Protein backbone atom coordinates (compact mmCIF):
# COMPACT_ATOMS: atom_id res chain seq x y z
CA UNK A 1 0.00 0.00 0.00
CA UNK A 2 1.72 3.15 -1.24
CA UNK A 3 1.86 6.03 1.18
CA UNK A 4 1.87 9.72 0.32
CA UNK A 5 4.60 10.56 -2.17
CA UNK A 6 5.98 14.01 -2.95
CA UNK A 7 8.35 15.40 -5.54
CA UNK A 8 10.85 16.87 -5.78
CA UNK A 9 12.47 16.22 -2.40
CA UNK A 10 14.76 19.23 -2.57
CA UNK A 11 14.94 22.24 -4.83
CA UNK A 12 16.63 25.62 -4.98
CA UNK A 13 15.08 28.68 -6.61
CA UNK A 14 15.86 32.38 -6.78
CA UNK A 15 13.64 35.25 -5.74
CA UNK A 16 10.88 36.02 -8.23
CA UNK A 17 10.82 32.56 -9.76
CA UNK A 18 7.89 30.15 -9.71
CA UNK A 19 7.81 26.62 -8.31
CA UNK A 20 5.50 23.61 -8.65
CA UNK A 21 5.44 20.82 -6.08
CA UNK A 22 3.65 17.52 -6.63
CA UNK A 23 1.86 15.06 -4.38
CA UNK A 24 0.26 11.65 -4.82
CA UNK A 25 -2.09 10.70 -1.98
CA UNK A 26 -2.17 7.44 -0.07
CA UNK A 27 -4.01 4.74 -1.96
CA UNK A 28 -7.77 5.13 -1.51
CA UNK A 29 -7.61 8.70 -0.19
CA UNK A 30 -9.52 11.46 -1.97
CA UNK A 31 -8.56 14.61 -0.06
CA UNK A 32 -5.21 16.40 -0.19
CA UNK A 33 -3.96 19.15 2.11
CA UNK A 34 -0.78 21.21 1.92
CA UNK A 35 1.22 22.57 4.84
CA UNK A 36 4.24 24.85 5.10
CA UNK A 37 6.79 24.26 7.85
CA UNK A 38 9.38 26.96 8.48
CA UNK A 39 12.54 26.03 10.33
CA UNK A 40 11.92 25.41 14.02
CA UNK A 41 8.14 25.78 13.78
CA UNK A 42 5.12 23.55 13.46
CA UNK A 43 3.43 23.05 10.08
CA UNK A 44 0.96 25.72 8.95
CA UNK A 45 -2.10 24.89 6.86
CA UNK A 46 -2.07 26.30 3.32
CA UNK A 47 -5.17 24.77 1.69
CA UNK A 48 -7.13 21.59 1.12
CA UNK A 49 -8.48 20.06 -2.10
CA UNK A 50 -11.39 17.69 -2.58
CA UNK A 51 -13.20 16.83 -5.80
CA UNK A 52 -10.72 19.02 -7.70
CA UNK A 53 -11.78 22.14 -5.80
CA UNK A 54 -10.15 24.17 -3.05
CA UNK A 55 -12.35 23.53 -0.06
CA UNK A 56 -10.54 25.41 2.69
CA UNK A 57 -7.67 27.88 2.77
CA UNK A 58 -5.31 29.11 5.46
CA UNK A 59 -3.78 32.54 5.83
CA UNK A 60 -1.56 32.48 2.74
CA UNK A 61 -1.43 35.03 -0.12
CA UNK A 62 -2.76 34.39 -3.60
CA UNK A 63 0.79 33.64 -4.76
CA UNK A 64 0.08 30.19 -3.37
CA UNK A 65 -2.27 28.22 -5.59
CA UNK A 66 -3.07 24.60 -6.14
CA UNK A 67 -4.77 22.03 -8.23
CA UNK A 68 -6.20 18.56 -7.79
CA UNK A 69 -6.45 16.13 -10.66
CA UNK A 70 -9.13 13.48 -11.32
CA UNK A 71 -6.78 10.79 -9.93
CA UNK A 72 -6.68 12.80 -6.63
CA UNK A 73 -3.04 13.83 -7.04
CA UNK A 74 -2.29 17.48 -6.40
CA UNK A 75 0.10 20.31 -7.18
CA UNK A 76 1.13 23.33 -5.15
CA UNK A 77 2.29 26.36 -7.12
CA UNK A 78 4.06 29.35 -5.63
CA UNK A 79 4.62 32.44 -7.79
CA UNK A 80 6.99 35.38 -7.31
CA UNK A 81 9.05 33.54 -4.72
CA UNK A 82 10.28 35.43 -1.66
CA UNK A 83 13.15 34.54 0.65
CA UNK A 84 10.54 33.85 3.32
CA UNK A 85 9.02 31.08 1.23
CA UNK A 86 12.01 28.89 2.08
CA UNK A 87 10.48 26.00 4.03
CA UNK A 88 9.53 22.35 4.07
CA UNK A 89 6.29 21.85 2.15
CA UNK A 90 4.28 18.90 3.36
CA UNK A 91 1.43 17.17 1.60
CA UNK A 92 -1.13 15.18 3.57
CA UNK A 93 -3.93 12.94 2.39
CA UNK A 94 -7.11 11.79 4.06
CA UNK A 95 -10.60 10.49 3.42
CA UNK A 96 -13.41 12.96 2.97
CA UNK A 97 -14.65 14.06 6.40
CA UNK A 98 -18.15 14.76 5.10
CA UNK A 99 -18.58 11.07 4.28
CA UNK A 100 -18.28 10.26 7.97
CA UNK A 101 -14.59 9.51 8.01
CA UNK A 102 -12.28 10.57 10.83
CA UNK A 103 -10.18 13.04 8.86
CA UNK A 104 -6.98 11.38 10.06
CA UNK A 105 -4.09 12.84 8.06
CA UNK A 106 -1.11 10.96 6.60
CA UNK A 107 1.91 12.99 5.51
CA UNK A 108 4.52 12.60 2.81
CA UNK A 109 8.23 13.19 3.31
CA UNK A 110 8.00 16.77 2.12
CA UNK A 111 9.66 19.00 -0.45
CA UNK A 112 12.37 21.24 0.96
CA UNK A 113 12.43 24.57 -0.90
CA UNK A 114 15.32 27.01 -0.61
CA UNK A 115 14.89 30.48 -2.10
CA UNK A 116 18.10 32.44 -2.69
Amino acid sequence: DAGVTQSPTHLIKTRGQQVTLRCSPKSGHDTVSWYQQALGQGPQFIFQYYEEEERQRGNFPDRFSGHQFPNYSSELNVNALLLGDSALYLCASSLNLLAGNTGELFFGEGSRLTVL
Partner: protein
Amino acid sequence: GIQVEQSPPDLILQEGANSTLRCNFSDSVNNLQWFHQNPWGQLINLFYIPSGTKQNGRLSATTVATERYSLLYISSSQTTDSGVYFCAVGTFGNEKLTFGTGTRLTIIP
Protein backbone atom coordinates in the same frame (compact mmCIF):
# COMPACT_ATOMS: atom_id res chain seq x y z
CA GLY B 1 -8.57 30.21 16.08
CA ILE B 2 -7.74 27.34 18.38
CA GLN B 3 -4.50 27.55 20.36
CA VAL B 4 -2.30 24.48 20.91
CA GLU B 5 0.46 24.48 23.50
CA GLN B 6 2.96 21.70 24.05
CA SER B 7 5.26 21.13 26.98
CA PRO B 8 8.05 20.81 27.67
CA PRO B 9 9.64 22.45 24.61
CA ASP B 10 12.82 20.42 25.05
CA LEU B 11 13.54 17.18 26.87
CA ILE B 12 16.86 15.37 27.22
CA LEU B 13 16.84 11.87 28.68
CA GLN B 14 19.08 8.87 29.10
CA GLU B 15 18.28 5.76 27.12
CA GLY B 16 15.82 3.61 29.05
CA ALA B 17 14.04 6.51 30.76
CA ASN B 18 10.32 7.21 30.57
CA SER B 19 8.78 10.50 29.47
CA THR B 20 5.46 12.31 29.35
CA LEU B 21 4.68 14.96 26.75
CA ARG B 22 1.67 17.23 27.18
CA CYS B 23 -0.61 19.02 24.73
CA ASN B 24 -3.16 21.63 25.84
CA PHE B 25 -5.76 23.04 23.47
CA SER B 26 -8.15 25.94 23.83
CA ASP B 27 -11.38 24.62 22.27
CA SER B 28 -13.38 21.45 21.68
CA VAL B 29 -11.84 19.18 19.06
CA ASN B 30 -13.00 16.30 16.91
CA ASN B 31 -9.54 15.35 15.71
CA LEU B 32 -6.30 15.03 17.64
CA GLN B 33 -3.20 13.39 16.28
CA TRP B 34 0.31 12.86 17.64
CA PHE B 35 3.21 12.81 15.19
CA HIS B 36 6.93 12.13 15.41
CA GLN B 37 9.00 14.16 12.96
CA ASN B 38 12.15 12.31 12.02
CA PRO B 39 15.46 14.04 11.18
CA TRP B 40 14.56 13.98 7.48
CA GLY B 41 11.35 15.90 8.10
CA GLN B 42 8.72 13.25 7.64
CA LEU B 43 5.79 13.32 10.03
CA ILE B 44 5.13 9.80 11.27
CA ASN B 45 1.63 9.07 12.58
CA LEU B 46 1.71 7.88 16.17
CA PHE B 47 -1.89 8.13 17.30
CA TYR B 48 -5.27 9.38 16.15
CA ILE B 49 -6.86 10.06 19.54
CA PRO B 50 -9.58 12.72 19.88
CA SER B 51 -10.60 11.05 23.14
CA GLY B 52 -9.73 8.04 25.27
CA THR B 53 -6.57 6.00 25.61
CA LYS B 54 -4.54 4.01 23.10
CA GLN B 55 -1.33 2.02 23.30
CA ASN B 56 1.13 0.91 20.68
CA GLY B 57 4.17 -0.90 22.02
CA ARG B 58 6.25 1.41 24.20
CA LEU B 59 4.04 4.38 23.33
CA SER B 60 0.65 5.26 24.71
CA ALA B 61 -1.58 8.32 24.60
CA THR B 62 -4.52 9.67 26.56
CA THR B 63 -6.83 12.51 25.61
CA VAL B 64 -9.22 14.05 28.13
CA ALA B 65 -11.39 16.05 25.76
CA THR B 66 -13.53 17.62 28.50
CA GLU B 67 -10.40 19.09 30.10
CA ARG B 68 -8.77 19.91 26.75
CA TYR B 69 -5.47 18.12 27.05
CA SER B 70 -3.66 15.08 25.73
CA LEU B 71 -0.63 13.20 27.00
CA LEU B 72 1.88 11.08 25.11
CA TYR B 73 3.84 8.55 27.14
CA ILE B 74 7.10 7.01 25.95
CA SER B 75 8.52 4.19 28.04
CA SER B 76 12.01 2.66 27.95
CA SER B 77 13.25 5.35 25.56
CA GLN B 78 15.59 4.42 22.72
CA THR B 79 17.88 6.68 20.70
CA THR B 80 15.58 6.21 17.70
CA ASP B 81 12.86 8.00 19.69
CA SER B 82 14.80 11.26 19.30
CA GLY B 83 13.14 13.94 17.22
CA VAL B 84 10.31 16.42 17.47
CA TYR B 85 6.88 15.34 18.67
CA PHE B 86 3.89 17.34 17.47
CA CYS B 87 0.34 17.40 18.67
CA ALA B 88 -2.19 18.60 16.08
CA VAL B 89 -5.90 19.24 16.51
CA GLY B 90 -8.93 19.77 14.30
CA THR B 91 -12.21 21.39 15.28
CA PHE B 92 -15.76 20.56 14.25
CA GLY B 93 -16.56 21.63 10.70
CA ASN B 94 -12.93 22.53 10.09
CA GLU B 95 -10.80 19.91 8.40
CA LYS B 96 -7.41 21.59 8.78
CA LEU B 97 -5.09 20.56 11.60
CA THR B 98 -3.58 23.19 13.88
CA PHE B 99 -0.18 22.13 15.15
CA GLY B 100 1.49 22.89 18.43
CA THR B 101 5.07 24.13 18.58
CA GLY B 102 6.39 20.67 19.34
CA THR B 103 8.56 18.97 21.96
CA ARG B 104 12.13 18.22 20.93
CA LEU B 105 13.17 14.93 22.55
CA THR B 106 16.82 13.91 22.69
CA ILE B 107 17.71 10.44 23.95
CA ILE B 108 21.32 10.04 25.04
CA PRO B 109 22.92 6.56 24.82
